């Protein structure tokens, strides 16, 4: 088995037992870490794998969160059912929005996706159709109920997030060992060569956007449950930059890398809370140093994910 899968399993075991050893405030930090890890992986599908410079990912995270919030608060839809639109709406929006700009290269795509994110924030801040609650967002999101059982404790929410991350990791593993996942890598590494091998660049990039956005939407729904509220600043461009940075600092397409990146960007700031603003100075420096010293990330991806029966002669 690949080393990174072993690491992922160890990580899941540790996170599985984490609630037994932590108080409720750490449990909240742990939950946020799990949710943001899911978002980071979804960004990694688009940026780290397909190589598309998507810097508006918070938009899709936000669409999922607002879908759950709006449907639950304004229309009384039980939380559990809001999961599906929270996945489908970002998925469809990804195809609609990314479709016309998918051919743009690197920096052009980056600027276009930032544009989408800014427009999204404008829209929800202006309380469109009286649904998004303006700058304050939406409060009073219900708890998850399944067959009349309420899952409202922090531990319950933690484990729901844990399940979501586990599913995301399973998807990442399946993607890695499939035609679709490989096609993304080929496009990323050399799109001319990829096309010449018969790969429809546009299709597989859109696939990456759709899949990544759907997963981000699921994470957004979980985020809304965790805070029982949503507001625009959780989904602005600064957040998108964070997700983008996590992938590059941790290591594009690297499971351990993305987890480390999320830990560094979201959990360390919590641990060093008492140092207030000074910590951001340290993080800024850490980001710069990582890019200089380890341009492929703290834990770069290792390729060579091939079946064992092909490794017979390797030295």
């Amino acid at each position: 088995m690949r080393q990174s899968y072993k690491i992922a399993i160890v990580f899941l075991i540790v996170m599985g037992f984490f609630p037994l050893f932590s108080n409720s405030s750490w449990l909240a930090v742990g939950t946020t870490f799990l949710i943001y890890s899911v978002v980071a992986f979804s960004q990694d599908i688009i940026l780290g794998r397909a190589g598309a410079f998507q810097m508006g990912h918070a938009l899709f995270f936000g669409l999922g969160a607002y879908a759950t919030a709006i449907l639950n608060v304004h229309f009384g839809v039980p939380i559990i059912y809001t999961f599906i639109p929270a996945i489908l709406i970002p998925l469809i929006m990804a195809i609609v929005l990314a479709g016309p700009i998918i051919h743009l290269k690197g920096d052009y795509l980056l600027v276009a996706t930032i544009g989408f994110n800014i427009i999204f924030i404008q829209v929800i801040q202006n309380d469109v159709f009286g649904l998004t609650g303006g700058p304050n967002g939406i409060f009073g999101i219900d708890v998850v109920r399944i067959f009349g059982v309420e899952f409202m404790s922090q531990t319950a929410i933690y484990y729901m997030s844990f399940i979501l991350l586990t599913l995301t990791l399973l998807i990442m593993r399946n993607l890695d060992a499939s035609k679709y996942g490989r096609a993304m890598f080929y496009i990323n590494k050399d799109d001319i060569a990829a096309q010449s091998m018969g790969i429809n660049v546009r299709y597989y990039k859109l696939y990456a956007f759709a899949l990544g956005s759907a997963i981000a939407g699921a994470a957004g729904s979980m985020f809304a449950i965790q805070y029982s509220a949503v507001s625009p600043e959780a989904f602005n461009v600064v957040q998108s930059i964070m997700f983008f940075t996590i992938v590059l600092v941790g290591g594009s397409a690297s499971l351990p890398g993305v987890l480390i990146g999320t830990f560094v960007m979201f959990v360390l700031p919590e641990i060093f809370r008492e140092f207030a603003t000074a910590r951001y100075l340290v993080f800024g420096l850490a980001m710069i140093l990582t890019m200089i010293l380890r341009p492929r990330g703290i834990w770069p991806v290792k390729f060579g994910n091939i079946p064992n029966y092909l490794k017979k002669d390797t030295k």
Partner: protein
Amino acid sequence: MSDYLLEIKDVSKFFHGLVAIDDLSMKVKKGQIYGIIGPNGAGKTTLFNCITGLYTPEKGEIIWEGKKINGIAPYKIAELGILRTFQTIRLFSEMSVAENIMSGRHIKSNQKWYNGIIHTPSMKKDEKKNWLKVGELMDFFELSKYATTPAGDLSYGLQRRIEMARALAAEPKLLILDEPAAGLNENETIKLAQTIRKVRDQGVTILMIEHDMDMVMSLCEYITVINFGAKISEGEPSFVQDDPVVIEAYIGSDEDE
């Protein structure tokens, strides 16, 4: 249907008003090893880029198995069975040799969109079938011991072999090689010629650009000579070799190959 696999009819391609291919015509028969030669900058690679869809010619027709294909996207050209290598090697250099060759199996794999998320028994079978094919190709090209090595870490000669294996993985009808012997030593070149012959004997038509005249003359069955984008001669090696126009073009361009 005609017995020509590929027909180029009066094709012209311009860059910023300058002609790179000038009213060029040629016909490649099924099963042939067809050579294209000409001095540097003659437009040979540009012609390949037109055939493979990377460029769209301004004029003329490219006919594949009787159907016009100019203007079609490169990935669709590959799906038709036209696969290529590049003059300046274009491998997925961070990825392993096996993964590089696996990219050639893309069009042969029948996985569905949901198989990127959920694996099914039929998908696993497809996956295994394609990896086994990659294994066969690594054996054929003596690359097996580098299966997990990043392609970019290997020597030039090995990289050229990987590129060819990758193209062949797609089971092409036409294999287009852009200077496959460039940068190879003499032994490697001899081996390459043998390999190309073997590939052809398996039923693959070969269209190649090559500067190594010994190799071209011994390997190719038919040759077109291009200079300044236009065809200046064509025929069997023995004819082309002694054609005064060809000799003139090469002396004129200060080339001693």
